[in-house]
C-alpha cells in the first residue's frame, strides 16, 4: 500500500515537473530525427575517377584503344547497376584527379597505363620486363576508397573476362545474416538510440531521488515507517514507465522515418524494461554521491557520456575482448549494462534472432543490474538514510 502511495506521489510530481518529463522522453526521438536527417543527406556514395593514358595500338589499319573500351565497360556497369551508389568519371589529367582526391571530391583514382592496349592485344609479350600495371590511388584508411577500389576491381575483372572469353570455375554466393543485407546506416543506429532513450532516464531518476534530499523531505520519510527499499522501488516504477514511454516514442518516430521493426515486440519490451531497471539502479549510485540537483547535473555528465559514447548507443562500437565467460566475450564497455542491451536489440531487430539467442546478453544485463542495485541501495542508505 505504501508502495502505491509512493508511486502515486511520484507520478504527480513527475507530471508537474513538466519540462524535465518532456526533455527526458523527447531527447531520444529528437536524436533519431536528427540522425535520420544527417544520414539521409549523406547517403553512401562512391566516386571513382578513371584516367586513361593508353596509347592504343594499330591493327589492320585501325586504331584500337582498350583503355577507352574499359571506360565504356565501366560506364555500362554503372548504368546496369543503379542500386550501387557508384559514380564513374573520366579524368583528363593526373594533377586534376589528385586534387579531387585530396579535397574528398572523389574516393579513388584508377590510372590505365600507356601500354595497356599493347599488352592486352598481345598477352604473350607480357613477361618480367614488359607488362602493364593499372594503378589505384586513394586514402587507404578511408572506407569509401576501399569500397570504390573493390568495385573498380570488379569492373576490371568483368572486362578481362569478356576479352579473354574465360569462364570462372568458382562462383561466390553471398547470403545475408537476418535482414543485414537490406538495412541501411539509419537502421543500424536505431537499436542504439532506443537504448539511448533509456540511458536518458539517468538524470530524471537521479533528480527524482536527490530532490527528496535537497528539499529535506527525506527527513519526513525517515521519520515515517517507510523503508529505503519501499521508497526507492516506488520512484523506480514511475521512472520505468517514463523510460518505456520514451522507448515507445523513439520507436514510433524511427518507424515513421523508415525503420522496419522486425523480431519480437515482447523481446524488445523485455530488454527495454530490464535496461530501464538497470539505469535506475545505476542512478541510485549517482544519487548516493550527490546531494543537490546541481550536483547531479555536474557529476551525472561523467557516467552519461560513458554510457552514451562507449556502449554503442550513439553509434555502433566494436570493443576489444578482455576475456570470455562460457564463450561470451566480455569487453570494457561490457561493464555497462546498456552495451549488452544494444547487442541484444541488434540481434533481435536486425539479425532476426529470437529471445533464446539473446539469453547471454539478458543474463549480463540482469547481473550488472543486481550489482548496481546492491551498491546503490547500500550507498544511498549510508549517505542519506542513516541516523547521524
Amino acid at each position, binding site marked *: 500500500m505504501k508502495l502505491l*502511495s509512493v508511486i502515486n506521489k511520484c507520478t504527480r510530481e513527475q507530471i508537474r515537473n513538466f519540462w524535465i518529463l518532456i526533455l527526458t522522453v523527447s531527447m531520444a526521438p529528437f536524436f533519431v530525427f536528427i540522425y535520420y536527417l544527417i544520414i539521409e543527406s549523406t547517403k553512401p556514395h562512391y566516386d571513382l575517377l578513371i584516367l586513361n593514358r593508353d596509347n592504343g595500338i594499330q591493327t589492320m589499319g585501325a586504331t584500337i584503344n582498350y583503355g577507352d573500351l574499359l571506360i565504356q565497360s565501366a560506364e555500362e556497369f554503372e548504368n546496369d547497376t543503379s542500386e550501387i551508389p557508384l559514380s564513374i568519371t573520366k579524368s583528363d589529367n593526373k594533377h586534376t584527379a589528385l586534387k579531387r582526391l585530396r579535397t574528398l571530391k572523389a574516393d579513388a583514382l584508377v590510372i590505365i597505363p600507356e601500354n595497356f592496349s599493347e599488352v592486352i592485344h598481345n598477352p604473350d609479350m607480357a613477361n618480367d620486363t614488359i607488362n602493364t600495371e593499372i594503378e589505384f590511388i586513394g586514402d587507404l584508411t578511408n572506407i569509401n576508397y576501399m569500397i570504390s577500389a573493390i568495385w573498380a576491381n570488379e569492373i576490371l575483372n568483368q572486362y578481362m573476362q569478356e576479352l579473354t572469353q574465360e569462364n570462372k570455375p568458382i562462383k561466390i554466393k553471398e547470403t545475408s545474416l537476418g535482414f543485414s543485407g537490406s538495412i541501411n546506416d539509419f537502421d543500424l543506429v536505431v537499436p542504439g538510440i532506443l537504448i539511448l532513450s533509456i540511458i536518458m532516464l539517468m538524470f530524471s531518476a537521479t533528480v527524482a531521488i536527490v530532490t527528496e534530499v535537497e528539499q529535506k523531505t527525506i527527513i*519526513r520519510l525517515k521519520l515515517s515507517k517507510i523503508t529505503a527499499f519501499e521508497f526507492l522501488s516506488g520512484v523506480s516504477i514511475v521512472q520505468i514507465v517514463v523510460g518505456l514511454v520514451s522507448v515507445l516514442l523513439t520507436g514510433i518516430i524511427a518507424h515513421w522515418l523508415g525503420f522496419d521493426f522486425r523480431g519480437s515486440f515482447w523481446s524488445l519490451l523485455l530488454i527495454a524494461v530490464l535496461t530501464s531497471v538497470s539505469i535506475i539502479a545505476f542512478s541510485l549510485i549517482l544519487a548516493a554521491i550527490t546531494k543537490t540537483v546541481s550536483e547531479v547535473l555536474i557529476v551525472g555528465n561523467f557516467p552519461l557520456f560513458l554510457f552514451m559514447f562507449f556502449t554503442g548507443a550513439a553509434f555502433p562500437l566494436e570493443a576489444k575482448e578482455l576475456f570470455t565467460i562460457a564463450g561470451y566475450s566480455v569487453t570494457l564497455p561490457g561493464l555497462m549494462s546498456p552495451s549488452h542491451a544494444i547487442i541484444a536489440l541488434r540481434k533481435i531487430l536486425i539479425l532476426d534472432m529470437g529471445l533464446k539467442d539473446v539469453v547471454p546478453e539478458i543474463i549480463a544485463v540482469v547481473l550488472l543490474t543486481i550489482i548496481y542495485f546492491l551498491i546503490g541501495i547500500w550507498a544511498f542508505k549510508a549517505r542519506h538514510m542513516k541516523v547521524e
Partner: protein
Amino acid sequence: MNTNQTEDNNTVINISHLTKSFGDLVAVDNLDLRIFQGEVFGFLGPNGAGKTTTINMICGLSKPSGGKIIFQNYSKQNNPNIRAQIGICPQENIFWPKLTCREQLHFMGRMYKLSAGLSKKRTTDLLEMMGLKEKSNVLADKLSGGMKRRLNICMALIHDPEILVLDEPEAGLDPQSRVLVRDFIISLKRDKTIILTTHNMDEADRLSDRVAIIDHGRLLSLNTPSWLKKSIGEGDLVEIILETEKFQRADEMVNSLKKLCKQVKFSEKALIIKSKGLIGLIPGITEIINNHGNKVMEIRLRENTLEDVFIYLTGRKLR
C-alpha cells in the same frame, strides 16, 4: 504515592546525561530532564544553544554521543514504533512543493500506515483547523510563508502522534497566523505532550507549562515560567534610560538607590532596578538620579520576563 512515583508514572521522555558532540564542539552537554505526559515543555535558549540538536536526538534523527533517552518503558532509542509516535514540525518548512496541501497530508498519512479513509479524514480536519481548507488543492510552493508554516504543523500531526515536537513554530509568522498557531497549540494541551523549542521568551512564557533554559548545550534552569521569573526576585522591574549615555557619579548613585531598593544594576545603557511596590518608589528613585547630576529620559515599568531570567543566569541577553 509520593511525588517521585507520580513523576515516574507521568514521565513520557526521560533524558539522562545526554551528550552530543560534533568533533570538538559539544552541542549538548550532559543534559538531564524529564518531560511529562500532556504538558507543553519549552526549550528556551539562544540560537546554537543545542535545542534543535536535542530534539533531533529525541526524534531519532541524530544519535547521542552519550547518555540515554528513554520513552516510557522503551529503552531502544531508534525503535521505529516510538518514532512513529512523534510528530515533528522542523524549524524550516519541509514539504513537497509539487504536491497540493491535501495530497501531501494524505501521502504522509499513508506513510504512517493510516487507512486511506482515516488519512483523508484527518487531512480534511487538519486543513480546516489550521485555516487551510480553501487552499486544499493549491500546490504547497504557491502558499504564503504563514500558510506554509501552518501546513508544516499539519504534517506533524497527520498521524495523530502522542508527542508533538515544534521547533520554533512561530518563526516567520505574520501576527494573524501567530495567533492561530498559538491557539491551536493551546487546544492540543493535555491531549498531547508538546515539546517546543524557541528563542522567543514571550512564546515560551505564554505556551509552556515548564521551561528548560539552555545555553551552550547545558541546562541552566528548569521549572514553570512563573517560578523561573520569581526565582530572580519577586516584584516589578523598572528600566531607566538617561538622556546622556554615561551615568554621572554612578557608584555613589547606585549606593544611594540600594538603600531604597535591593537590586540595582546596570545593563548596557539602562539602569535596572527590581523591587516590590516599585510604583510608589519611582518619585524617590528619580530624585536620587537627578541629585547625582543625571537626567532621566525614559522610565519603563514591567514585570519580570524569561529574558530577565536568562540575563540573570548568563549575564547577557538572548542572542
